[in-house]
């Protein structure tokens, strides 16, 4: 794994979807694509590796896309989650976005340009979240230091 490369996880029980998407992303972007036909295998990978974005099919035999993404959220809450669906059922999609906290949903057949934009935005969000977390950490650290300093001052005076 080259440092600084965004890692994208794609899960679909259909090999052809994985091949198409990963080929496209490999050719058009510098993302590192990890594709899985099994949601469980993907979860195993995610448990061990920090990832930047995850895309899952909606309807899969082993585990449905929503449950899978819910589990991903438990493991890595900041990763933008995208669902890929053959149903253009906007009502259900909206419900899912609210329930699982989806970043976006993509309809099959998808448009490659749309995909690019969604990924770019998702990764930007991830980046911003990370930066935000870093800032919060810095603030916490500074706050801790400040508190230590405060304690020292109190001790000195008391």
């Amino acid at each position, binding site marked *: 794994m080259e440092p600084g490369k965004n890692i994208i996880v794609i899960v679909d029980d*259909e090999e052809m979807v994985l091949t198409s998407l990963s080929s496209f992303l490999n050719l058009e972007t510098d993302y590192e694509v990890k594709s899985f036909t099994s949601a469980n295998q993907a979860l195993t990978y995610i448990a061990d590796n920090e990832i930047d974005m995850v895309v899952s099919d909606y309807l899969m035999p082993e585990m449905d896309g929503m449950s899978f993404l819910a589990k991903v959220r438990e493991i890595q809450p900041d990763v933008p989650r995208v669902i890929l669906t053959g149903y253009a059922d*906007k009502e259900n999609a909206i419900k899912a976005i609210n329930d699982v906290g989806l970043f976006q949903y993509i309809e*099959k*057949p998808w448009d490659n340009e749309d995909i690019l934009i969604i990924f770019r935005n998702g990764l930007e969000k991830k980046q911003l979240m990370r930066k935000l977390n870093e800032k919060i950490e810095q603030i916490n650290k500074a706050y801790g230091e400040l508190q230590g300093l405060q304690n020292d001052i109190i001790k000195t005076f008391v």
Partner: protein
Amino acid sequence: MDISQTELTRLRQSEEKYRRMIEMANDAIFSIDVDNGQILEANPRAEELTGRALEKLIGLPVWELHPAEEIGRAKNLFNNVVATGQGSVRDMEFIRPDKSRIIVNINSAMVEFGGHRIIQRICRDVTAKRALEAESKTMHQFFEYVLNLMPVGLGLKKDINATPTIVFENRKLQEMFHSDDDDPDHNHWYLDCKESECVDKREILGVNGIYGIEKKFHDGKLFLFNVSYYKMPDETWYELQMVQDITDQRKMENDLRRSNEELESRVEDRTRELRQKQSALAQAEKMASLGQLVAGVAHEINTPLGALKSNNDLFNRYFTRLFDRLLSDDCPEPIRNDPDLKKLYENISNLTAVNLTALDRIVAIVNSLRLFARLDRAEKDSFDIHKGLESTLTLVNHQLKGRIELIREYGQLPSISCFPNQINQVFMNILVNASQAIDNKGTIRIKTWYDKNKRVIIEFSDDGQGMEPKVVERIFDPGFTTKGSGIGTGLGLSIVHQIITDHDGTIEVTSSPEQGTTFKIVLPVINNH
């Protein structure tokens, strides 16, 4: 004066002959003394009529034959005859000893016999005659009474071929026609009731005949005349008219006929409605089961379609990039200018373009299928039909432009509660069909109005090629298309039907070949969809 024996014999014979005649006469004959009014002689009939024997009659003053109340009158008669030489009186009475009475007509005259003046009186018994007359009068009155009671007008006129005169008219008839004497129609109807056709009939039928005619008077009254006519032996024509006021009856008949017709047409309407509902129900069921199937199919197709579409896009990108590189100056000259390579490039470019078109068409079909299966639900919203129509017209404008004249007849419509994108889809499908039905130039008319049942009606009419009835029957069937393969999916109108039914609306189509087609959509303002 000498009278010869022969003469005497002849006189005796003559006297005998007259005596016999007097004795046999059917009238009572009296000889009366002119001085005191006493009866001198009487014939047997006189005995019979007075109820007295001859010996009782002789010497009886003649007025004594009458009842007490007539004695004065009887004396007057006697005095009158004495004074003037004659007199007659009708309908006096004789009273008999048994108190029974008879009615007599009396004729008296003064005669002289050998210097003696006597009064001769002839009395005719008219009792029976008077009784008959009275009876006849009673009968007459009775019949008149009955005729007046009859609920129809009865009139009798005579001399109908010369100067008609009214012989009789009953009360009902008078009520019918004499209520308003200023009314020219009603007065003397019977005098001018000479229809030429009736005259003809009379001629055909001969002496007697009957016919009926209806006459309408200017006040709206309708009368039925049943006329019978006949010729009396004295050549006088009579006509009996029986007149019925059938105004109410005819009105009732007409009302009955009308309500009967109304009932029949209502039954017809209901039957048609029922049939329509049945077929709509069957249609809806078909759609529902098909919808589930289609939903599955659409989903299954979308996955491989997604891969294909993505790959084709990718292939096109890199193929172009590859050839750009091959044809660039960086490449060795033999490769760069290889004509086969150029040919290859052009052909492959064409093929990927065709692939893209083909894929887009598959996407469009699957989208129709999805819509049909109601997968593409958006939010229910308040919707302005006219805005929807206009936005749809913008989309199909390229199909209409310069070729089809658009006539808008928009009425005042309230906003309706619906799924706007679905209703727009309906407009789109119908408008595309209409434009395809018009071969060259033509007109599409869009008419909208709001009816009293709080429903919005949108009517699309084209003057295109129209359809045969057997085509019209099937146009809402999924998969049925008259367009060539590759042009229509056969789902357009099925989707339309499905959407309208889901909105609690109805869609009707009327079409005939060469005349064009009209789609009428009825939508409730509020539905439970």
